[in-house]
C-alpha cells in the first residue's frame, strides 16, 4: 500500500498552517503503511550562496551547536531534527562526522524516521512549521529494508523530493545505468532510483515534466508518484493506475493524497475540484 499526501499552497495566507494541515493529512493515511513515515517542508528560502542541510545524527548524541560552529553554519532544531544553513559543499564533511544529510536545498527540509506518522510528526514538530508546500509519506515496505534511509521522501538532489506508492520492477537495471553515469546510491530502494533518475535528468537540463516523461519510458512497474522541486509540484501515475490517487484543486491550494479522507480537513474542501488524476498524464503545478 503506502500512503502519500501533498499540499502546494497558492494563497500565502495559508503558509503559517502548512505543517498543521500536512500533519493531519499524513496521520489520516496511517493505516496505509505502518513502517516508516516522513515529510518534506518547503519554506524559509535561504539567500543565494547558502544551502540548507537537513541532518540526522547517526551516533548517540550530537552537539549541533558545535557542529554548526565548526562548519561556519547556523542551525535550527526541529524536535529531534536539525537543519544547518551553510555554504554548499559540506555534505562529505558532515557525513564523515557521523551525520546523515537527509536533504539539501535552498527551500526543502526533510524529516523521516521509522515509525507511525503521528510519532514522526510529533518528533520533528511538523505541525508548527510554516511553508509554501509539503509532501508526506507513510510506508508499507516492499522493495527494501525498513530503515530511516529507506523511508520516503527521497531527496537525492537539491530541493528535489519524491514520494511513491507502488513498486518498480526493472529498477536494478536503471540503477546500473545511473551508477555508470556517476550517481551514487544510498539504499537498495526502488524509489531512490526514481528520484535519482528525475534528479539526473533535471541536472542535465530537463524540466520536471520532461524528466517525468523519461521516467515513464525507462521505469516499469506500478506507481503513483508525487514529486516536488523548489517551485513545482507534480503527480504522475503508470498506465494501469492500480494505486489510488485523488487531487483537489482549490483557489487557495492544490492538494494530492492516496485517498480523499486525507483531504477532509483542508479549508473549504467542499468547493475544491476533486478528481482522480488520469493515467500517464503528467500534472505539474508551478509557483508564480
Amino acid at each position: 500500500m503506502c500512503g502519500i499526501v501533498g499540499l502546494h499552497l497558492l494563497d500565502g495566507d495559508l503558509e503559517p498552517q502548512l505543517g498543521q494541515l500536512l500533519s493531519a493529512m499524513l496521520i489520516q493515511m496511517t493505516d496505509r503503511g505502518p513502517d516508516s513515515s516522513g515529510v518534506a517542508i518547503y519554506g524559509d528560502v535561504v539567500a543565494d550562496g547558502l544551502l540548507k542541510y537537513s541532518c540526522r545524527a547517526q551516533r548517540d548524541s550530537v552537539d549541533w551547536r558545535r557542529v554548526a560552529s565548526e562548519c561556519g553554519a547556523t542551525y535550527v532544531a526541529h524536535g529531534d531534527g536539525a537543519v544547518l544553513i551553510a555554504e554548499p559543499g559540506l555534505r562529505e564533511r558532515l557525513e564523515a562526522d557521523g551525520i546523515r544529510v537527509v536533504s539539501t536545498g535552498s527551500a526543502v527540509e526533510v524529516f523521516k524516521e521509522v515509525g507511525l506518522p503521528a510519532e514522526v510528526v510529533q518528533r520533528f514538530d511538523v505541525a508548527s512549521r510554516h511553508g509554501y508546500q509539503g509532501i508526506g509519506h507513510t510506508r508499507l515496505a516492499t522493495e527494501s529494508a525498513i530503515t530511516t534511509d529507506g523511508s520516503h521522501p527521497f531527496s537525492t538532489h537539491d530541493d528535489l523530493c519524491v514520494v511513491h506508492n507502488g513498486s518498480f520492477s526493472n529498477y536494478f537495471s536503471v540503477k546500473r545505468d545511473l551508477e555508470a553515469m556517476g550517481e551514487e546510491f544510498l539504499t537498495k530502494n526502488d524509489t531512490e532510483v526514481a528520484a535519482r533518475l528525475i534528479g539526473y535528468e533535471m541536472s542535465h537540463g530537463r524540466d520536471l515534466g520532461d524528466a517525468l516523461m523519461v521516467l515513464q519510458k525507462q521505469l516499469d512497474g506500478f506507481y503513483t508518484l508525487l514529486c516536488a522541486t523548489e517551485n513545482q509540484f507534480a503527480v504522475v501515475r503508470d498506465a494501469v493506475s492500480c494505486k489510488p490517487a485523488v487531487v483537489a484543486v482549490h483557489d487557495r491550494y492544490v492538494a494530492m493524497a492516496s485517498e480523499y479522507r486525507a483531504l477532509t480537513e483542508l479549508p473549504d474542501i467542499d468547493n475544491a475540484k476533486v478528481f482522480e488524476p488520469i493515467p500517464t498524464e503528467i500534472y505539474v503545478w508551478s509557483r508564480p
Partner: protein
Amino acid sequence: MTVAAATVLDCDQRSVREINVELRNLEPGSVVRIVNPKGRHNLAVGLMKHLDITFAGSVGHYIGGLCDGVQIQIDGFCGWGVGENLMNGLIRVTGNASERAGATAHGGTLVVEGDAATRTGISLKGGAIAVGGDVGDFSMFMAQAGTLLIGGDAGEALGDSLYEAVIYVAGSVKSLGSDARHEELSDDDVTTVTQLCAIACFDHIEPQNVKRIASAKQLYHFDALKAQKY
C-alpha cells in the same frame, strides 16, 4: 402525502460498522441523511431493501456496493468502486467518481454527474450507468450485459472484449478495445438513451447523435487458424 422526517446519522459520532448496522435496522422506505462522511469507505453496503440515503459530502471506496433496492445520493466526490455489484436501485454521484464505478453491477442505475475514472463498468452484468462527463481508460472491459452512456469523451480501449453490453458515447473515443466496434444507431437505441437521460436528468446529450459501440463478436469462439494472432 406526508414526507417522512429524515434520520440523521453522523459519521463523526459513529464508526462505519455502527452506521451500517443502523441502516440495516431501519424500516424499509426510511429517509436517511448521513453527515460528515469525510471520505470514509464501505458505507451503505449490502442493503437489501429500499432506503433513501443522502451522503452530505464526499465519500471513500465501495459506497453502496451489493445493494438491492436502495436510492443513494452522494453530494460530492466518491472513491473506488461506487455501486460495485449493485443489484437494483439508483445511485447518484453529483461530483466525479474514482475508478471502477459500477463494476460488476447486475442491475439498477448508477448516475455520475461529473467524470468517472478508469475501468468504469468493468465486467458489467446488467443495469445501466450514465456518466455526464468523461470516462477513463479500459471502461466496460469484458462487460457482459447492461448499458453505459457517456455524456463526454471516452479514454483508451473502450469496451475491450465486450459481450452483450452496449455503450453510447456523445463525445469522442480515444481508442476502442479489442473486438469493440461502432454500429448503426437504431430507433430502439435512441429510445434507450432518451430514457436513460431522463432518469439521469441529463439535458446535454442529444440521443439521436450518440455513437453506439458494441461487440463485433469475433472473440466469442476460438479460431485455430488465428492461433498466432490472439
